[in-house]
């Protein structure tokens, strides 16, 4: 069990890199919505690679997490804004994004410094993402929307499911994990993080399937 937990954390970066390679391979044939998602995958892969390098160099890579939370949310909010166009108040996602950017900046500068784990920003990000994911599921269940987004429907379902599972598990890890920190051992901590890695791997697999099932441009 301990071996499995360690392995999940070790190999968590593989699906991210694979997803980025696949997104890069498909990029010119992807529709606008999927291109925006590709930016998120590229960002994830870049952050993952740089953090690995920093980890091998024994440098604190938590600063990257602060950057990843901020930029990741901006890109995902852009993605959701594009796919939910016409079904959500136009300025809502923009407003929430600006609010979140300001919040994370204030949080990183004044409350949870760049060298510490930004659990508050991560929790808020997870809550916002869960709201967007659940709402997207509701939207995708509607027959009219299904007809309108026919080509993208299956792809969006995979992507949304992946993001939903990941951010739900993140909420558990970042919020509940922090609350119970006094009760568990380092092994429990490792199990918790391996669970998080597992859901992260699952998310990137779902994103890859989503990209695979997405419609292609006729001319790039």
């Amino acid at each position, binding site marked *: 069990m301990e071996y499995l937990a360690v392995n999940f954390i070790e190999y968590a970066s593989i699906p991210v890199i694979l997803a980025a390679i696949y997104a890069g391979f498909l990029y010119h044939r992807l529709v606008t919505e999927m291109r925006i998602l590709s930016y998120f995958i590229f960002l994830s892969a870049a952050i993952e690679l740089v953090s690995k390098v920093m980890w091998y160099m024994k440098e604190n890579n938590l600063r990257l997490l602060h950057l990843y939370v901020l930029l990741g949310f901006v890109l995902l909010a852009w993605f959701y804004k594009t796919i939910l166009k016409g079904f959500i108040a136009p300025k809502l996602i923009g407003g929430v994004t600006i609010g979140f950017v300001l919040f994370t900046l204030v949080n990183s500068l004044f409350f949870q410094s760049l060298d510490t784990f930004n659990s508050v920003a991560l929790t808020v990000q997870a809550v916002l993402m869960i*709201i967007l994911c659940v*709402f997207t599921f*509701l*939207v995708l269940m509607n027959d009219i929307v299904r007809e309108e987004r026919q080509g993208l429907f299956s792809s969006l379902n995979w992507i949304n499911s992946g993001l939903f599972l990941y951010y739900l598990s993140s909420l558990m890890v970042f*919020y509940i994990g922090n609350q119970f920190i006094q009760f568990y051992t380092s092994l429990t901590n490792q199990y918790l993080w391996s669970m998080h890695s597992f859901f992260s791997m699952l998310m990137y697999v779902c994103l890859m399937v989503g990209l695979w099932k997405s419609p292609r441009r006729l001319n790039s």
Partner: protein
Amino acid sequence: MEEPQEIELLGIVLPFLGIVFLIALAVLYLNQYFQKQLTQQKVTEQELKIAQQKKLLQTSINVQESERKRIASDLHDELGATLSISRMHLMKLEQNPDMSAELKSSIQNIRSVTESALTSMRRISHELMPAQLASFGLVKTLQSVVNQVNEAGELSLTLEESLGESRMSWELEVGLYRMLMELVHNTIKHSEANEAHISLKKTFNQLEMNYTDDGVGIISKDAADGLGLKSIEARANAIGGFFQVLDGVGFHARVILPT
């Protein structure tokens, strides 16, 4: 000993429940907006569909009318002229003193058939598109129709109008003329009425036409469908107006059209 742990647990669970509640509230709000947008979208789509159907109907009626006009004009100018010339030649032949009585009788028969064809052709041409509608307008044409119906003696038809010499768009004049012809035809054919009345009133932006007769009225729904009332309604709608059959003794129909 258990009390502090209980408080700690509450401190963990309650904020979490708060987060779940917040998520549910936000999703509910978004869903509410989404449903509203969807209804709005459906209404807009429906409106577009109706507008498109109306335009299609209008185009189809316009095409039909212009084709009728062309056929009526061709009949009158080409076939009418040919028949008139034939009749003229036949009359000239009849005046030949060297002709045998048998031949003269045959020529008279041919002339009679030609005259009958000429009369039929004029009637068909007039029914397709009365020439006076284009030349003199709706009121004069209707007055002529009223005279013709009254001369036939089956029905006493009256016209009351406040349009005077003013002319309307061709689309409106033809539309109203066709609707009225259909209504007069229904009265003569089905209503057993003795009197019928046409009223045309124009306000600053609309035209109201009322048609009444003292006949049996509409007996059943099937009868209503067969009376061409649907085509009258379609015509009225295509011009941007509406048609309604009102309750009361006999038959009363009203058409409101934008001018």
